[in-house]
């Protein structure tokens, strides 16, 4: 029996449910077994009719061509069957009815279209969404194919040998003027530091339980320090940068490490890239600076002023050799080594000023005063950047170019993990990454602009700074690549200013000591040091006013007004002296004081001299796993 329902266009929900698995369940449990397939749907309608063959064929031709739900097809078949039955009942012949029906295929097309228009809103919405998704996917596929073709067909053009340009100055110096070979000899000659000293190396002092052993180690390395002294006197550093270390230096460096040297870099690019160069001298010279700091403490304890001056000269010579770059990081290490010289001198002045004669302190002051200021130089970093651009991007003339497939590997090596090559996912997304990466010329211009802006706002005395420190590239820089490669200019300038402030304080402290020796007491003010012992009172970098001075407990104190820019008479913040502070604008300090608990660290003054005392080290120290070398 044909189920009855109302609303011919849309079968009732109960009727549609019968065509679902739920319907099967209902039939099996309630209404009996489901009819066989040839009796279901429109076929069932035809099977139940007693129409002549010609009309049944017509209905079958229409219903079989409908692209509709099963219930909709059955409904159409029922209606056509009823139509033909009415025609036969009115006396028309089967052939005439068939002929007057028209083209079944066209009827099926039109009925399909009309029935679908009558479907519910949700169905039409889903269909439209699917159409849009399909269209979007197709468009995306076409766009991807276009981008992929460009990505894989582009190739970079290497037109400049930046490595050779970087080494021009180093290789043009006469052999006898080059310090680097002597530094290498000293590094090789140095007795490997016992691992138990790694963690506090540079901070051992007389009174520490390990001090006797440290002194013995230093004694065994005096010949090496003499070699360093000869190196420090040479006018040129003379170290060519390269992707590999000299073999004898490499053997020495890796002899300190259980794991041995890393595998040699894979030669995938013509000629070494600037990004592949190694700078072993930076770590080595920082290690030597720590050794010299220990040696200055030992020399002062032994009242050996000549040895103190020798070591001080080595530190300042190393700083001089590194301060001209070629990279920001090299200049930062130069500042750090210079700071070691200042701190070592400060400690001698505080603890054993009589270790040096008047003449030796004068010589020390002249050595420190003669230190050339570090002039920030981004030429090397710029070559590093430009070399990556020429190897990672195509050259389409006029400085333009897009990221290439080969360049994707280079960019990948700059990210976290440092490479290993792009994986399949990276390569698949490569065309999109390339399209999203700005043009080569745009990157170059952004680099130039950001560097110029950073230097313009920082190439001033610190007290004239107005913009908060921020090493982020800023909102105008959109490329991740650029954010990774831009040097941290603000941090560099902050370190430079701190270093200059420290040197000013050390020179002033030496002048105070010499004044005391001449006059038997500390001066009433720093102005009393001028002009015999100091050309001028150095500025406080926080506000540009003269550095502050006080005598407390019979000892002089040199101080800055600190981050709160308020003279507290040399009183340190309530939470203790601030070490390695980060410069903040007055507004930033006010905001922190107003909103943050524990912000008292920003109140009080910044003691520039003497350095804070420290407790002796404990007896037993185990070398930590990540001990410094």
């Amino acid at each position, binding site marked *: 029996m*044909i189920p*009855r*329902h*109302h*609303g*011919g*266009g849309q079968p009732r929900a109960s009727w549609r449910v019968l065509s679902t698995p739920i319907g099967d369940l209902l039939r099996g449990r309630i209404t009996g077994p489901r009819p066989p397939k040839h009796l279901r749907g429109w076929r069932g309608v035809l099977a139940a009719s007693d129409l002549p063959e010609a009309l049944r064929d017509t209905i079958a031709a229409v219903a079989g061509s409908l692209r509709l739900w099963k219930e909709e097809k059955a409904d*159409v078949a*029922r*209606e*056509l069957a*009823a*139509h033909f*039955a*009415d*025609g036969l*009942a*009115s006396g028309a012949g089967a052939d005439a009815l068939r002929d*007057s*029906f*028209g*083209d*079944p295929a*066209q*009827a099926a097309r*039109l*009925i399909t*279209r*009309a*029935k679908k*228009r*009558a479907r519910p809103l949700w169905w039409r919405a889903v269909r439209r969404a699917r159409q849009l998704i399909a269209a979007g996917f197709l468009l995306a596929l076409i766009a991807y194919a276009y981008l992929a073709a460009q990505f894989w067909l582009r190739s970079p053009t290497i037109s400049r040998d930046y490595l050779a340009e970087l080494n021009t100055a180093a290789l043009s110096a006469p052999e006898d003027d080059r310090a680097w070979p002597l530094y290498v000899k000293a590094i090789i000659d140095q007795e490997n530091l016992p691992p138990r000293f790694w963690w506090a190396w540079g901070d051992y002092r007389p009174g520490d339980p390990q001090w006797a052993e440290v002194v013995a180690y230093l004694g065994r390395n005096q010949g090496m320090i003499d070699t360093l002294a000869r190196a420090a006197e040479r006018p040129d550093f003379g170290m060519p940068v390269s992707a590999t270390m000299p073999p004898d230096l490499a053997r020495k460096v890796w002899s300190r490490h259980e794991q041995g040297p890393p595998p040699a870099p894979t030669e995938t690019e013509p000629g070494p890239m600037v990004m592949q160069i190694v700078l072993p001298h930076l770590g080595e010279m920082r290690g030597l600076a720590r050794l010299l700091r220990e040696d200055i403490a030992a020399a002062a304890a032994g009242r050996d002023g000549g040895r103190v001056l020798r070591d001080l000269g080595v530190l300042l010579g190393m700083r001089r050799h590194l301060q001209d770059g070629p990279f920001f990081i090299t200049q930062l290490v130069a500042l750090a080594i210079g700071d070691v010289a200042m701190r070592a001198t400060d400690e001698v002045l505080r603890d054993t000023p009589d270790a040096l004669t008047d003449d030796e302190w004068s010589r020390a002051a002249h050595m420190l005063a003669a230190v050339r200021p570090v002039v920030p130089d981004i030429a090397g970093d710029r070559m590093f950047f430009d070399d990556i651009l020429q190897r990672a991007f195509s050259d389409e003339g006029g400085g333009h170019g897009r990221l290439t497939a080969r360049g994707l590997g280079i960019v990948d090596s700059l990210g976290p993990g440092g490479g290993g090559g792009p994986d399949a996912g990276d390569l698949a997304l490569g065309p999109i990454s390339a399209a999203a990466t700005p043009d080569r010329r745009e990157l170059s211009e952004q680099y130039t602009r950001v560097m110029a802006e950073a230097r313009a706002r920082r190439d001033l005395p610190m007290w004239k700074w107005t913009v908060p420190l921020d090493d982020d590239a800023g909102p105008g820089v959109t490329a991740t690549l650029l954010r990774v490669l831009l040097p941290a200019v603000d941090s560099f300038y902050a370190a430079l200013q701190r270093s200059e402030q420290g040197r000013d304080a050390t020179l002033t402290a030496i002048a105070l000591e010499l004044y005391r020796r001449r006059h038997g007491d500390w001066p009433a003010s720093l102005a009393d040091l001028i002009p015999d012992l100091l050309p001028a009172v150095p500025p406080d970098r926080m506000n540009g006013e003269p550095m502050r001075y006080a005598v407390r407990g019979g000892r002089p104190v040199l101080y800055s007004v600190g981050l709160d820019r308020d003279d507290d008479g040399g009183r340190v913040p309530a939470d203790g002296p601030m070490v390695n502070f980060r410069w903040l604008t007055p507004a930033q300090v006010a905001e922190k004081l107003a909103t943050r608990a524990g912000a008292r660290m920003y109140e009080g003054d910044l003691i520039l001299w003497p350095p804070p005392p420290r407790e002796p080290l404990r007896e037993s120290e185990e070398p930590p796993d990540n001990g410094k070398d």
Partner: protein
Amino acid sequence: MRIESELLRGAGPLAVLKTLERGPRYGYELVEALARQTGGVLALGQSTLYPLLYNLEAKGLIEADWREADSGRERKYYSLTKSGRKRLARDTEQWRLLSGAMQALGLGPAAAEVPA
């Protein structure tokens, strides 16, 4: 004479709505009525009529209802909805305006051509 399908496309739905104005009709009855009342000019083939009905139904102008006839057979009856009546009134007015305009251009039907 067979009417071009382009002309019939506008006239067909209006003719169906008009035919249903007097009450519900089933498919075969509609075909017969249209052919009879238009002298065979609007003798819609079923391959045209049923899609037309389904379209009108999708637009909510007519509604369908299966009923059992006296003969015991089932028929789907179509009837005008409220929207359908409004549409019929509006389209009738437009059709009159159009017909008048065509007559003004000398395209009015000759007496002999008007169906009986």
